[in-house]
């Protein structure tokens, strides 16, 4: 049991791939492949894309041809180039947003769960209020406050990422807090208190490591939500300016009027990029989640491996 846990924490995807079978393995592999393709495209965007993200051409709304394989937009951008470069924007926003929200959420969750008292109560009420409110609406208000709604590439990425962060913090906060409360009663924490370890040390050394085991799962699930929120912000015009970076949501906004006159190529490609990316990340996160839950894992395996203490189920659910 102990060795299995440490292997899992080191190589989450690999260990789950071994556990999986049949349909679940197919979904997991599809998720891995799509996510890898997304990351590779982002890394190799300069090599794949024939043009820059913000390069403009004289042909506007030109249908797909050999020069512009996916056509051009009303603004004279090359659709292929913008779709490819869009992966880079998406990766940057995900990394910044999720890293920030994990960082803040974990710290607040540890403090709230460990210290308890009035701090805990206030933080829980605030987190619940934010959690209950529609993500996108709050992100819209945040982005207006941060950047007045329009911005260049880096400040746009940061303002989008921070807007998303604010709405994600409660999710990490709740998971970590619940875990911290559970771990606080464990013998190893009590013995650390008896030995005389300081609160900071107990939180940082003993609880932190144990409470953050499920984070890779939430990370993958949140990454897909971050992409959807970013695209939603861009679509509503609160995202990144088109002249500073390629962003799928913004391009889809302009594609709506194109669609009304039958121009399909400006919207279909960036939209498909969003769907494939989110699909890949969700398949990856979902399969890992299911494989960790003995109730949902492929049925033939359940008899063989009995490692389903209820604590683990609770963890995965949270």
């Amino acid at each position, binding site marked *: 049991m102990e060795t299995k846990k440490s292997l899992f924490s080191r190589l989450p995807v690999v260990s789950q791939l071994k556990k999986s079978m049949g349909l679940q393995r197919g979904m997991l592999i599809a998720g891995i492949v799509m996510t890898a393709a997304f990351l590779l495209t982002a890394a190799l965007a300069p090599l794949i894309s024939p043009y820059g993200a913000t390069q403009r051409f004289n042909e506007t709304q030109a249908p797909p041809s050999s020069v512009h394989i996916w056509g051009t937009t009303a603004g004279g951008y090359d659709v292929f180039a913008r779709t490819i470069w869009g992966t880079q924007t998406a990766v940057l926003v995900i990394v910044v947003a999720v890293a920030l929200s994990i960082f803040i959420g974990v710290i607040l969750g540890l403090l709230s769960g460990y210290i308890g008292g009035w701090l805990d109560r206030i933080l829980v009420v605030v987190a619940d209020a934010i959690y209950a409110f529609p993500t996108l609406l709050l992100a819209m208000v945040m982005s207006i406050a941060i950047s007045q709604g329009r911005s260049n590439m880096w400040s746009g990425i940061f303002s989008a990422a921070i807007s998303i962060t604010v709405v994600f913090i409660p999710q990490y906060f709740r998971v970590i807090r619940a875990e911290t409360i559970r771990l606080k009663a464990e013998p190893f924490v009590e013995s650390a208190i008896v030995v005389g370890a300081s609160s900071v040390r107990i939180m940082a050394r003993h609880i932190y490591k144990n409470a953050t085991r499920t984070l890779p799962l939430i990370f993958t699930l949140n990454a897909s*939500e971050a992409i959807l929120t970013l695209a939603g912000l861009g679509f509503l*015009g609160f995202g990144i300016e088109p002249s500073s970076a390629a962003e799928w949501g913004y391009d889809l906004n302009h594609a709506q009027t194109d669609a009304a006159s039958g121009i399909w190529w400006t919207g279909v490609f960036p939209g498909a990029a969003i769907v494939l990316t989110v699909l890949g990340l969700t398949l990856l996160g979902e399969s890992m989640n299911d494989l960790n839950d003995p109730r949902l894992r492929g049925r033939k395996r359940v008899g063989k491996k009995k490692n389903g203490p209820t604590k683990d189920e609770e963890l995965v659910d949270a």
Partner: protein
Amino acid sequence: MTAMIDLPQAEPAAQAPERKSKAGGSLGKYLLVRFFLIFPTILILVTMVFFLMRVTGDPITAALGGRLAPDQLAQRIHEAGYDRPIFIQYFEYLGQIATGNFGRTISDNLAISDMLATYGTATLELAINSLIVALAIGIPFGMLAAYKRDKYQDAILRVLAISFYATPVFFAGLLLKLVFSIWLGWFPVSGRAGTSTEIAMASLAAPTGIYWLDALRSGNMNAFWDIAQHSVLPAVALGLLTAGIFLRLVRTNVIGTLSKDYVEAGRSRGVSEYRLLTKHAYKPALIPIITVMGLQIALLLGGAVLTETTFEWKGLGFQLAHYLTARDFVAVQGIVALLAVIVAITNFIVDVVAALIDPRVRY
């Protein structure tokens, strides 16, 4: 997405041991605590939005800046009282909302309550339509997926459900528009109704604001047909998003119920799988869905903003984006306050229903 669905369910379980010791656990006490939690929720959201919006300056400069000379602008700001310390303004604003006075929008000088009533009903109509679509797709297909667990039908349905979730509403809307409006010509591209219907609806006495209901009440079948045609694509675009979630939820719950002891007992007595599904497992599996349905209100409202913008459906979400762009802070605060109230009350109702159904929740 799983995190979104599972968190609310997991939370009482996670907190239960901690609170059980403190609160005795009577239903009345629990509901009272939950009821009073409505107010901090609303207060926190209203406060957040108030300060976030004021970070960028006062509403008048934001809305009219550039169109007025600096001294005129300063005069207007002074008259409106926006040059006073922000905390005084904040408490004044709180006092106003407490008495139900939300003020008037800056950009088009509408009373906030009228604005909310006009656009809120449009959003309500969209939400109802899309909920019908979501339930009509989610429940039967979720049961099918559970019944055919691990077979190819299950695989297809699960991948479809994830794809529905992965497709942003505005992209689904774009594809629906391309196929059904442009290429097939079955449905209009955008709007809530045709121009003549809009006029007919506006001239009705004592309208509910929900168009198809008004059309039915006034017996205007042409208008009803027109409204129905306009409703289909937005409802499907938004409905598919939630349908994917319902499908997965129904599937997981039905699978869970199908492995319960009493279902096993039925199975061992030779009750057919189909009958087990439709008679034994169906109802208990739907109970958690009622609560999760309430929790989906946040997703639905977020999705409504995008759907309304995609289809130019003039509801709260469409107006929120418009007022945010116009920096009409009074209007934005009013909309957020209303949404906060809706979300808080829905969560309260969900808690009540959950507590009535499952005694373990009352901790």
